[in-house]
């Protein structure tokens, strides 16, 4: 059994790189990524699991990093927006202007990237099912949906 208390040294695999970090067991993954690793792409929005601005991938699945303790992520592969480079979704967001203020963008891109990895040709219903996990307070949903549709191939 693994036990952590006080200040604990753990190893996290972030964007393919194994990194050692000292955390409190109560530290969320979001804060460790941002404050200890300087990976500020995941945003602290609501910190209540509602907005999706903090979305990262754990073993390829999107999760809200404000609801995950860093110690829970040990042994999993963590992918943040910084680990995605020139992916079809990122190109789609650029081409379709799928953002306005940009605060929510990294969460949307990470989630949409996972969506296309799972469903390379998603139908509209699947896109909506996945993307309702993320909020855009600029309400630019139409552009976001177009960006993802552009990144995907023909629909399922």
């Amino acid at each position, binding site marked *: 059994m693994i036990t952590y208390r006080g200040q604990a040294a753990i190893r996290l695999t972030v964007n393919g790189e194994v990194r050692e970090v000292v955390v409190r067991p109560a530290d969320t993954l979001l804060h460790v990524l941002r404050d200890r690793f300087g990976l500020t792409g995941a945003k602290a929005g609501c910190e209540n699991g509602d907005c*999706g601005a903090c979305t990262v991938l754990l073993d390829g699945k999107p*999760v809200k990093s404000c*609801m995950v303790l860093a110690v829970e992520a040990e042994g999993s592969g963590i992918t943040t927006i910084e680990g995605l480079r020139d992916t079809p979704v990122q190109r789609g967001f650029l081409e379709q202007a799928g953002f306005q203020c940009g605060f929510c963008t990294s969460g949307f891109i990470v989630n949409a990237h996972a969506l296309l990895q799972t469903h390379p040709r998603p139908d509209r219903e699947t896109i909506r099912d996945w993307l309702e996990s993320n909020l855009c307070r600029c309400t630019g949903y139409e552009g976001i949906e177009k960006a993802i549709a552009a990144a995907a191939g023909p629909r399922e």
Partner: protein
Amino acid sequence: MIAHNLVYHRPETIGEALGAFAGAEAEGLKPYYLAGGTEITTFSRRGLITPGALIDLKTIPECRVLTRREGSAVFGAGLTLNEVGECPFFPLLSEAAGIVDHTVRNRLTLGGNIAGMLPYRETVLPFLLTDTAARLAGPGGEREVPLADIFSRRLKLKPGEFLVQLRVPEAEAGLPWFRRRRVKQSRLDYPLLTICALAARDGIRLALSGVFDSPVRSPEVEAVLNDRSLEPARRAETAAAAFGLRARDDQRGSAQYREMLLLRGLEETIRELGGEG
């Protein structure tokens, strides 16, 4: 950020989990069992709870089981709602697991939804309609009991106990079903009404959440629902009254509105599950 400090345990076996719970209590720490963490992390951040120790159950193999064996479908309490939703063993349960958003469903677990702190516990409804057996682990050892014997408004666990698995007879899991979920605005919101129903040989079985303070299945209500001497509309009206409970009244919906939704939902259930004849 979670302001207070805590101790985190990741046991590999049921025995280690129980030992960690007992050890934390002996240290004077307040232990909580952790699964997906969607409630524990957010409630801790807001200071609503202050766990002194978290015992992470989700990597214990028995809690991750998803299988069919000896005429039953077995669901580990540590399965995420997306894993449950994608499983064909119990179609009504798969549908009931479609709550919250897709990303949260990658963390939120069956056990967490049923044994957690929020009152809705929508995934328990399909289980309440069947002869589900709950496998529990606690300081006194492991036991398997009918879920109906330990669920009354909430899961009645003994101190230090946790839910390991739920076992559903396949014959019941495959029955025709009906589900209706009503919310104020967004699909992601908590329910004003969630009805889950099965059409069994002995008639319609129905459980609901959202209308009252806790999930409920009532034999008195089902007796009325299946009383074919009454017209369907009259049956729905009488069944709604037979709950004998006060509807929730909050910012999401008034008691009167919830009662109206309940009546319509019961009418739909009778119609959809062929109870009109």
